[in-house]
């Protein structure tokens, strides 16, 4: 799942400062699940913006909407009438959603209300951790299903750096586990430590040619 978090209020306020009529659009998929851009977050942000303008004695009118997936043109097109009524759109979606909106309604400025952070999973209620760096060249078969590209602070492929903290914690953040210690323990459990002892040559960092594009051949 794509994980995002809301931008600082000051940044959002400045982006929309010139506009009196706004459409706030949430996305019902990943960012709803990670509590960043669902219907509820749209409501909170709308309330905040209205209160902020109220305090400044300036007017604002906000339309709130949430679409199922903001990265789908067909689903975003439902908003056509609403977009016509406003001067700008504030999108509570990941970067893909914001760009879909912006591409669909080129006359209207579309602003991002979120920072898209990573692909992750919920560790527990309300806490998400990064799991995948979208490298296009998956390495997980060699590491017991733990990605060292994103779960190691340095993205090392051949084992831990020399900075592992006591108890197998990361050099950068003692709150986080050293990915290579996790990998070691898991492979040990599976009797597959030989995988870790193997040398892995430099990674192909161009497995996905930017901008990424995939043509499915199945259809």
């Amino acid at each position, binding site marked *: 799942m794509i994980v995002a978090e809301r931008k600082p209020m000051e940044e959002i306020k400045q982006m929309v400062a010139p506009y009196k009529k706004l459409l706030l659009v949430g996305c019902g998929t990943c960012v*709803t699940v990670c509590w960043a851009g669902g219907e509820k977050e749209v*409501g909170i942000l709308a309330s905040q913006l209205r209160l902020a303008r109220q305090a400044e004695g300036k007017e604002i009118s906000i339309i709130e909407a949430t679409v199922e997936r903001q990265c789908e043109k067909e689903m975003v097109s439902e908003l056509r009438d609403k977009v016509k009524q406003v001067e700008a759109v504030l999108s509570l979606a990941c970067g893909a959603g914001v760009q879909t909106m912006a591409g669909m309604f080129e006359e209207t400025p579309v602003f991002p209300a979120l920072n898209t952070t990573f692909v992750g999973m*919920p560790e527990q*209620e309300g806490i998400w951790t990064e799991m995948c760096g979208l490298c296009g060249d998956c390495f997980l078969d060699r590491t017991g299903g733990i990605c060292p590209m994103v779960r190691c602070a340095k993205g090392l492929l051949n084992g831990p750096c020399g900075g592992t903290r006591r108890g197998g914690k990361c050099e950068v953040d003692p709150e986080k586990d050293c990915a290579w210690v996790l990998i070691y323990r898991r492979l040990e459990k599976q009797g597959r430590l030989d995988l870790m002892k193997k040398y892995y040559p430099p990674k192909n960092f161009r497995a996905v040619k930017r901008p990424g594009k995939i043509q499915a051949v199945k259809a």
Partner: protein
Amino acid sequence: METRIGIFICDCGGSIKNIDFSTIKDKIAKIPHVVMVNLASNLCLDEGKEELLSRIKSDNINRVVIAACSPEFKEHIFQQLLEKAGLNGHLLSMANIREQCAWVHEGDVTGKALELIRMAANEALLLEPLEKREFAVKEEVLVVGGGVLGINSALQLSRVGLQTILLEREVDLGGENREFEALWGTDMSSMVKAVEADENIEIITSAEIMEIEGEVGDFSVRIMKGAEEISRSFGAIVFATGHRVEDIAPGLQLKDNANVISQHGFAQMLQASTTEPGPKTVGFVLGFSDGNSRFSTLATLNNALACRQKWDSEVYIFCKNVEVDSEGVENLYRTTRERGVVFVKYGDFPKFSIEKGVVKVEAKDIFAGEEISLTCDLLVTDEILLPAEGTEALSSLLSMKMDARGFHQDENVYFYPVASNRKGIFFVGDCRGNLDPNRALADVSSAVMSAYELLSSGKVVAEVERVKVDPQKCRTCLTCIRVCPHGAIQLVRMSNGDTDGENEVAKISDPACDGCGICAAICPAKAIKFEGYSDKQILAQVEMIGAS
């Protein structure tokens, strides 16, 4: 259908004096959808009720607002009246103009009362009927733990006519406290016989719970007995999973010393020995553990007394406090003293040492004010009561919190003594940290009564979909399932509209839901509606502030 609100205002037999009702009546008559306003003096007495009933019918009212006393007192009575008038009882909104207005304010009380009524009327507009339904329950109870409390629970459940399965982890029934059956006033072997002979009770030993799913009235439990898997459903579950003890040998190595023994070990020794001469001098220590030491006290007093009677030993009890606040313990304490047991109350912890195989205790008696040095043949040490093994695993299986000491049942006054945050699940005795035999047996009775109340009619009545997940809006983020304190939400497969596809969505169990609304507040997709406390209904009240 047109919404027709009828507003009934009551001055509670004249006890509301500082509100100008006629002004109010004039103003609220103008609120949209309000078709009648009635002033009454005793809405909750017969004549008032009659009036209410007849006006609902005659004016074709379909939403009722009552401005009177606190809904905490009479709401249910008025709801019944609505039902009698052929209206759903939930279509009632109350304005608390007495306790929270007339009786607490000076100044513009009328203005405030008017606003409270407006709030209630605005909420009433949005009310929707709620149906009640009977949900069948399994009249069968699972009792986990085959010790004295589990056996007692099973026997009592059987006596009230509930089928019971008694589950024990070990090979035999009996549990940990066999040595202390005197304290329980029971004879374990005859209890085991009784439970084995009972037709309502099925005993499964050497078995453990693997999984518990479902909700009150219908818990499906997967049990493993060796390699054999048993899946059964129960209406309720009583946990009597007991505790474990850790010996506190102050400054001494318990294992290495034949002359230092635990309370349980000593009780076994008492039971086993027949004629040989017992120890001449016996010392007991109490008060080294911080937790509930009632059982420790009781065991000490009993053992001390028995030791006087059996061997005529010299007995000393070194204690900080003797907790005699359980039934009969004060008496036991007196008897113990009368029979010549010496109590030494210490301030600072005594010193213990071993010289030539003999235990030496040095203490200062704070009453007598003298230093005491005693050598004894046997030292019986304090014990600390700890949660049984597996308590944590079981708690997470049930998605329940443990209390600060790690026992079941939390320390929440609402659940006290035996209930839990999940309806139909009960904890009795030492597994919830209570090991005082009388109280623990009272726990059993409470749990049996609760289970009986819950299951004996074969059904529970609950409002249907009071809190409801909109399957179209649910993003299956699992948040509600993770946060529900009552374990009332599950993931279900649901066919999606008119397609054949199946979607996984969250579903709230009506009988298990306790109506807190935590899920509705946290849902990031705003997919959960709590009828009566929905976002719109709450905001309808908020909207009215300053509207008058």
